[in-house]
């Protein structure tokens, strides 16, 4: 990391300029279609040793215009492209809202053990006792961390966990004879998946205002009154929230929600900031989902792979997905299918086992003290960076912050926006933070607990260098990135005239 940073210019007029012409350190990789050479192929077929017979015409389709290349050319092409990958293994990745931290290699070792990696989901339980024990213990760990009564490991992603939990809540109210509880409240800073999951589930989402980044409790009361307490199913809160703040009034929100007879749902996307410090059940949560791939580390991004276990309080237990992994009285592990009120299966077989093995390895490797340390460092790192950026960037929400914070570039009259800062960060070998969310014009920065002080300092220096550039040479930011194989994309043009198909010149 530091060596990458070391190669980066510290001011706008250093060697960076010469790099612009070469667009990075390698020529631009042509498309595989452009590399095609007629007659080249990846395999040599053995000589024909049977009589030639014509193919039935009806079996022949239109020839597909595929690229013709030897095996080695294909290999180098994709290897070149893979080196362009931007990943947590090569670069700092302070992406707010989705924890992109180091994935300890011991997790990969564990997940690759043949006893986990080579199982067949239909194998007899007696042959997979180790894997079942791991799932059972993971379930217990998550119950302890959440403080809630039972966990289902089936959901395969965070949003899938939300959907599952909302189904569980709906089943609960149907069972109670209150099928009209169809409204789910969420603060206006909620993750986009919250309203999406509600809509998928047939619930109606109603937004609650936030003030200074916190849920406006008066507005919460107002919305409940407006729609009638008897129509409210749940209040979905993310805590710490997307503004990077731990909402200390969540207990009061829980009381308001419980008074309406509804459930408090915790979106657990930001659990890394509170691991072991508090348990969602202690601040009133009735149900939550984990994003184990974020909180307990798994290589992820672009939609997977993940796991979104759901934890629930006593009243919701009967409705969890089935089957449930259990320890039987004789000490063996197996599946409990006998759950008549269950919403049923939400995932083929038993969930995303490979991801859960990694979560288990992470939890076991760190232990209680280690997990507490995760929370401590996530919070310290975010607050350290916020302090280092405070003079040059506007921090609209008052700290202290949890695991992330929101910064707004404010460079008077320079015409420089968040997108320009984000694009310029790429030149420094840094993945840009989330942009323009949860508020307009912002950058949402999550350093995570795994970054070294040197990396945090290099990021702060890059951000402050960019702030200087915004004042002295804003055009340099407007044209960034300068050092990547591809420069500033025409995003507006691409959106207005979508064309994703390559055609020969």
């Amino acid at each position, binding site marked *: 990391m530091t060596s990458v940073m070391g190669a980066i210019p510290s001011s706008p007029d250093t060697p960076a300029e010469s790099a612009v012409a070469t667009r990075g350190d390698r020529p631009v990789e042509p498309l595989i279609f452009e590399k095609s050479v007629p007659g080249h192929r990846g395999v040599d077929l053995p000589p024909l040793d049977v009589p030639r017979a014509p193919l039935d015409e009806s079996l022949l389709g239109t020839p597909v215009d595929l690229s013709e290349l030897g095996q080695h050319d294909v290999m180098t092409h994709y290897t070149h492209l893979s080196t362009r990958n931007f990943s947590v293994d090569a670069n700092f990745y302070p992406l707010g809202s989705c924890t992109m931290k180091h994935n300890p290699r011991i997790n990969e070792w564990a997940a690759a053990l043949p006893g986990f990696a080579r199982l067949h989901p239909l194998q007899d339980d007696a042959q997979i006792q180790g894997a079942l024990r791991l799932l059972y213990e993971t379930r217990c760990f998550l119950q302890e961390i959440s403080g809630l009564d039972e966990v289902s490991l089936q959901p395969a992603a965070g949003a899938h966990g939300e959907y599952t939990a909302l189904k569980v809540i709906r089943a609960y109210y149907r069972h109670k004879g209150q099928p009209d509880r169809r409204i789910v409240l969420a603060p206006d800073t909620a993750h986009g998946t919250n309203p999406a999951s509600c809509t998928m589930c047939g619930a109606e989402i109603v937004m609650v205002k936030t003030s200074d980044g916190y849920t406006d409790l008066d507005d919460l009361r107002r919305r409940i009154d407006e729609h009638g307490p008897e129509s409210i199913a749940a209040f979905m809160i993310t805590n710490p929230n997307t503004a990077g703040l731990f909402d200390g009034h969540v207990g009061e929100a829980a009381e308001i929600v419980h008074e309406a007879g509804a459930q408090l749902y915790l979106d657990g996307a930001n659990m890394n900031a509170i691991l072991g410090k508090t348990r969602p059940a202690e601040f009133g949560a009735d149900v939550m989902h984990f994003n184990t791939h974020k909180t307990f580390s798994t290589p992820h991004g672009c939609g997977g792979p993940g796991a979104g276990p759901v934890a629930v309080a006593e009243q919701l237990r009967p409705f969890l997905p089935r089957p449930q992994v259990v320890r039987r009285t004789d000490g063996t592990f197996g599946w409990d299918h006998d759950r008549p009120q269950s919403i049923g299966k939400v995932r083929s077989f038993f969930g995303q086992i490979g991801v859960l093995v990694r979560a288990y390895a992470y939890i076991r490797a760190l232990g209680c003290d280690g997990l507490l340390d995760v929370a401590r460092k996530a919070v310290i790192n975010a607050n350290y960076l916020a302090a280092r950026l405070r003079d040059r960037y506007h921090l609209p929400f008052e700290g202290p912050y949890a695991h992330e914070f929101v910064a707004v570039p404010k460079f008077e009259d320079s015409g420089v926006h968040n*997108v320009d800062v984000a694009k310029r960060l790429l030149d420094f070998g840094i993945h840009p933070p989330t*942009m*323009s*969310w949860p508020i*307009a014009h912002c950058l949402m920065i999550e350093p995570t607990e795994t970054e070294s002080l040197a990396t945090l300092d290099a990021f702060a220096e890059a951000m402050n260098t960019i702030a200087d550039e915004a004042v002295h040479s804003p055009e340099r930011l407007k044209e960034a990135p300068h050092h990547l194989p591809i420069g500033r994309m025409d*995003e*507006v043009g691409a*959106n*207005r005239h979508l064309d994703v198909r390559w055609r020969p010149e």
Partner: protein
Amino acid sequence: MPIPSECRYTETHEWLDLDGDIVTLGITQYAADELTDVTYVEMKPEKSTILPGEPIGEVESVKTTSDIMSPVGGEIVAVNQRAVEEPSLLNSDPFGEGWLIKIRTADPSPLDGLMDHETYDKRFPVAG
């Protein structure tokens, strides 16, 4: 064409112009600037009935997607197809060729509670 000084304005940056029982609605220059280049416009189809305060469509830029709300209810009598085909009109001429929708309303009274031009302009001044 609506005259900005005669329009009413919402907190969520729509302008509304009342002519008889027809309300024309669009987004303000301030909103267009905040969104940056608009790339996509989708409105509810003509003849739909809408309730006051309901979303009537959405506007998308590379930065964000925003619901467009109408404080008045009624029937949608026209959608600006040119703006749908050419979303940049919302940036270049939000009060003119970039209008979004026309609603026939039986009850224009919600307009009374909205901001006038001076108040809106003071609260949300257009930069530059």
